[in-house]
């Protein structure tokens, strides 16, 4: 969580027509606020998080005067959402806090995740924290294309001799292409892919896993292997967990590339 956070009203004073909240997520509990009213909210192009919860002051929303909505790459929000800095949410127990716009992730994330086969003390986790990217517009945007940019992850350095597990955010994504090229002169490499759905648990190994690629071997001397993951056939996941087991003859000779997209190719 980037804290103290940037201030939306400073973007207004600076003459910008939007405020961008772009930060790595520390935990599923990251909470941000906006003190400026909005004419639209949309998922930003670099967001790994697919679902963002917006809580806002709405005097027509019952005794709590708080309404909520979720934006996603499929659904932006256009229309006036007011930040009522001068009027409190009428919630006595929580201290009648100012009626600002509240922004948080609606997706779950566990930075301590480990695949069920992870061996502590031997195996290695490489976590890519998800990015939260939300754009708040102060003027009506002419058009909104909340679809996110494709992302590319490239790896070559792996620690031998046990499994290296690389966790890649995959919230709301519909397509992934994973490819491996082994230019090692002698050593083959084993690899596997899991689709991960985070759950609420105290055990980092008890999240929901689906084996998308069983353990396979990429031969030395130019061996190649790949995997296509499509939402329509494989399902939807919060993350992909790519496992690599490789003891190199020469370092940095195994190239791995993962590309993720909102579009199912």
């Amino acid at each position, binding site marked *: 969580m980037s804290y103290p956070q940037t201030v939306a009203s400073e973007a207004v004073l600076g003459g910008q027509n939007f405020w961008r909240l772009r930060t790595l997520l520390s935990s599923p509990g990251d*909470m941000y606020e906006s003190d400026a009213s909005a004419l639209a909210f949309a998922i930003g192009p670099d967001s790994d998080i697919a679902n963002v919860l917006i809580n806002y002051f709405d005097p027509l929303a019952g005794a*709590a005067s708080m309404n909520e909505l979720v934006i996603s790459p499929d659904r932006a929000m256009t229309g006036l959402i007011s930040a009522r800095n001068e009027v409190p*949410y009428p919630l006595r*127990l929580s201290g009648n806090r100012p009626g600002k716009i509240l922004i948080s992730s609606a997706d779950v994330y566990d930075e301590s995740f480990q695949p069920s086969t992870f061996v502590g003390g031997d195996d290695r986790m490489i976590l890519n924290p998800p990015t939260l990217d939300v754009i708040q517009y102060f003027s009506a945007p002419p058009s909104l294309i909340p679809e996110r940019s494709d992302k590319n992850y490239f790896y070559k350095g792996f620690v031998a001799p046990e499994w290296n597990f690389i966790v890649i955010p995959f919230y709301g994504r519909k397509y992934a292409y994973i490819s491996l090229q082994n230019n090692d002169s002698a050593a083959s490499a084993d690899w596997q892919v899991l689709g991960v759905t985070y759950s*609420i648990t105290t055990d980092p190994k008890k999240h929901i896993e689906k084996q998308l690629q069983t353990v396979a071997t990429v031969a030395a001397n130019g061996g190649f292997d790949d995997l296509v993951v499509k939402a329509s056939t494989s399902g939807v996941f919060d993350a992909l967990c790519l496992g690599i087991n490789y003891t190199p003859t020469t370092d940095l000779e195994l190239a791995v590339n993962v590309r993720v997209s909102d579009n199912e190719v």
Partner: protein
Amino acid sequence: MTIAIALVEAAGLAYDNLYVKYTTASTLETGIITFITQANPSFPESAPNNHPISNWLTVINAFLVTNEGRLGLANGGSLDQLNTIVQLVYRICWCGEELQDDGLITSTQATALLNAYNNAFG
């Protein structure tokens, strides 16, 4: 119900602990009231670093007000309501854990949040 010894554990136990409250007559709503009432004084509005926690407490309070009298199985409460409050408690616990790790709230404040959780749901 299980007492948590740390906020990250409290987060992981959110479903288990609140499910017990959900199935026990009238205890989920009183648990939420206890949690907000006991946690809130430790996070005054005057300190900006308190805002993430105080904002979560506001959202939880809004959930309580919106669903007052209709929480828990005995009151016809739905699993959707349970899922919502579990997620909110899960998230505020994680928030407290990260704020403490980053030095943005004190260990006293984090302990107050954990104690409020255990008194309400543990």
